[in-house]
């Protein structure tokens, strides 16, 4: 505790925690008070909704980062511990350092959000308290425990090295379990607002567990957990990209090239399964309330999904492009160049189809000229069957890119390798054909069959393909002959802009999805239970939402850069640590 930075950080976190605990303690009185007070107060200049929106989204962005980053940091630490490769240990510590820098900001934004709710939405907050008060204490205790463990994890890195490394890894795992538990508690509040459960028709609490375990709670838990990993990975990769571009030496460039690669690899790995979790969430929304589901997908929010499709298309294209650029620094990767044009074609066509709107806003003359609001040809692609099909094909293509990257400088020495490759190729081909066939079948069945049977079947086909191909790939390339070492740092600089593009796009996408999740409640604080009677009860159009999201994203990145800069101040003037040395250009073998 002699380190002033440490004292400062502890102080910040404890201050935020104290604010939470104190507020939680006074809330019942505040709730009773609120019943006699106005239901709303107006935030100066911006209005209450915009203030809550901005702070909530910023808090969410930071929280996603500090929850996602440690998950893959501990995985990397475990890899380093088991393989004895010091590069991974250095990288894990570097990732936790980034997390650490953002920790206090997350807590302070959370406290600020609480102030806004208590002050500007007193009736809403009183109602939420009447349902969830016991969970506030759980949240506060978990928060305290996580803070303690994360600090111990970070500052005990050297202390718990060597024979005591298992204790250190255990702390990392514990920190993640506590972080995930915090996420689950907060998700209970958020999802209750969307799909309330455990209350009677008058909104009175019947079962706390019913309120927590509502329709969308577990899907959101899983979706956010995965999305947090993707987000943490993209932000860490973007940080590495920035450091790569600003690097003064080849050694530094090599180090951050590798860091960017690992961050992006983790992000893509989680990103590939994210659409499946999203589908589950959408499915549960329909199960909770058909009207809400239909309003979300076919009502005033329908165009939001076109924007989402474009953003995810950019993520798919960017992720693959980065891998292809990365292969240029791997001797032996030339063998696989011929696969890139067809893969690019699949991704591009998939992108276009996914972004095809079902209907268009037309003048009467335009609609008559086209023969209706649905285009006779393009209208076929604007439906779920086509979109689900191309998403699954894009996931398969991205997975293929990764498989090729993984083997770029390897030649299998196993005698059964030709058969293994053939089986892998056939598996890919059969999976692609099956996905397309199921998609076509979707046009000829009723919606229930399409939603409940065919779409999960497509997902299953893709997941089985990933498992089968990797089950062959891992033993096939174990002990493989190397065609040359990866030239870390020799990647084209534009690849680093791709990493930044991915981080910006994913952050913006998170903002958009946050708007979608809140927007589907329309004029309800708690859907069907507590109505929004404030002047802000109008759910704004997409353009307005996009403007807000952009401003929030700009503020978020400005804060992130400032915090990372602050975090790096302590290192200035110090001698360079020797630990990163193994990550020099020309590192011997590809990671992971």
């Amino acid at each position, binding site marked *: 505790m002699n380190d002033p930075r440490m004292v400062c950080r502890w102080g910040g976190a404890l201050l935020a925690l104290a604010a939470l605990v104190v507020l939680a303690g006074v809330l019942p009185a505040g709730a009773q008070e609120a019943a006699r007070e106005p239901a709303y107060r107006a935030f100066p200049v911006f209005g209450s909704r915009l203030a809550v929106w901005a702070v909530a989204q910023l808090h969410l962005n930071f929280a996603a980062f500090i929850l996602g980053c440690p998950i893959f940091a501990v995985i990397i630490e475990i890899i380093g511990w088991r393989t004895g490769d010091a590069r991974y240990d250095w990288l894990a510590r570097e990732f936790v350092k980034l997390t650490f820098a953002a920790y206090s900001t997350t807590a302070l934004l959370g406290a600020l959000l609480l102030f806004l709710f208590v002050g500007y939405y007193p009736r809403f907050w009183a109602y939420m308290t009447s349902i969830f008060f016991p969970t506030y204490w759980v949240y506060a205790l978990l928060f305290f425990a996580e803070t303690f463990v994360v600090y111990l994890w970070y500052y005990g890195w050297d202390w718990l090295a060597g024979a005591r490394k298992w204790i250190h890894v255990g702390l990392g795992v514990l920190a993640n379990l506590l972080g995930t538990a915090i996420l689950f508690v907060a998700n209970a509040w958020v999802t209750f607002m969307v799909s309330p459960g455990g209350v009677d*028709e008058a*909104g009175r609490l019947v079962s706390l567990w019913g309120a927590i375990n509502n329709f969308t709670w577990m899907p959101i838990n899983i979706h956010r957990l995965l999305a947090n990993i993707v987000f943490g990975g993209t932000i860490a990769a973007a940080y590495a990209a920035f450091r790569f571009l600003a690097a003064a030496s080849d050694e530094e460039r090599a180090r951050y090239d590798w860091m960017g690669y690992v961050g992006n690899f983790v992000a893509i790995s989680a990103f590939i399964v994210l659409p499946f979790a999203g589908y589950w969430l959408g499915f549960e929304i329909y199960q909770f309330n058909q009207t809400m589901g239909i309003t979300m997908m076919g009502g005033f929010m329908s165009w939001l999904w076109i924007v989402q499709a474009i953003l995810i298309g950019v993520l798919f294209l960017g992720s693959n492009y980065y891998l292809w650029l990365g292969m240029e620094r791997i001797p032996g990767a030339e063998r696989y160049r011929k696969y890139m044009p067809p893969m690019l074609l699949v991704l591009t066509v998939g992108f276009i189809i996914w972004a095809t709107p079902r209907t268009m806003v037309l003048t009467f003359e335009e609609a008559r000229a086209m023969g209706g609001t649905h285009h006779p040809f393009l209208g076929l692609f604007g439906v779920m069957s086509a979109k689900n099909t191309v998403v699954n094909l894009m996931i398969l293509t991205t997975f293929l890119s990764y498989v090729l990257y993984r083997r770029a400088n390897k030649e299998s020495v196993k005698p059964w390798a030709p058969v293994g490759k053939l089986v892998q190729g056939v598996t890919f081909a059969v999976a692609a054909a099956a996905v397309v066939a199921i998609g076509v079948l979707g046009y000829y069945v009723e919606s229930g069959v399409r939603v409940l049977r065919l779409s999960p079947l497509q997902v299953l086909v893709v997941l089985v393909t990933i498992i089968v191909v990797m089950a062959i790939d891992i033993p096939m390339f174990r002990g493989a002959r190397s065609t040359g070492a990866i030239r870390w740092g020799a990647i084209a600089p534009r690849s680093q*802009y791709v990493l930044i*593009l991915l981080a910006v796009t994913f952050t913006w996408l998170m903002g958009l999805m946050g708007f979608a999740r809140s927007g589907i409640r329309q004029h309800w604080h708690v859907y069907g239970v507590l109505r929004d009677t404030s002047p802000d009860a*109008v759910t704004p159009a997409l353009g307005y939402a996009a*403007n807000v*999201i952009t401003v929030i994203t*700009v503020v978020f990145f400005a804060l992130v850069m400032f915090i990372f800069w602050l975090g790096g101040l302590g290192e200035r003037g110090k001698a360079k640590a020797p630990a990163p040395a193994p990550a020099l250009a020309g590192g011997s073998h590809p990671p992971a």
Partner: protein
Amino acid sequence: MRVPIAVRVALFALVVMGVYTYFANSIPQIESRPPQELSLEGGNVTPAQLVRAGQEIFRTKGTCEVCHRVGQAGARAPDLAGIGARAAQRKPGMSAKQYLIESLLQPNAYVVEGYPPIMPAVDRPPIGLNRSEVWAVVAYLQSLGGTVDVTLNDIPPTVGAGGGATAAAAEVKVPGDPKAGRAVFTGKGGCVACHKAGDIAGAPVGPDLSQIARIQTPEYIMRKILDPKGAGTVAGFPAGVMPQTFGQTLTAREYTDLVAFLLTLK
């Protein structure tokens, strides 16, 4: 001049976000506005006015168009063209209006073959139509090929009385004395000159308020007294008749007493 890396990266990020923002602003802009409450009770509403109101509710607050179309088959729900005539043949012994009322309030009592049982009860949250609104929607549906003969008395008085927001509204405690409020209603306020309220006979210039607490929110009632013009005029009644001056002529105590009295009218 060499542009610093931080500036280049920031500009790149801004361009990317700018493109997304531009695109989101260039596609159709649709807002979702909260629905307005409609009260037709006690009014001399013509069938044509009722049908028009019902059509509006069908498209907006009722969210019926999310699944139903008129003159166009849908996968989720039946085409409602001609439902006014067809409704009488759906269930033996049930008239068209009885069937339509049942379909709105208990949608799963009879589900048209080939469609999933996904329709919510329209008088429950989140749709939460009040009695007047259900009346108007039934009238509109009857008008689609049938004869409009539904009256307010055909709609059960319990419609719209329970659940979520309505229940929450009923729980609002106004710190006033209903007895004193009754005196304001018949005396200083002069409300009785235009309104009937339960056992208080009044002239039929304005709507009958005998069930006003059931069909309207406390917020609406409070606003209507202070700003009658801003709160809107009930269909079938002349606009601009109710004085705008209660905010000045009534004391705060009289105002809260009056509101407390009106909230007892269920």
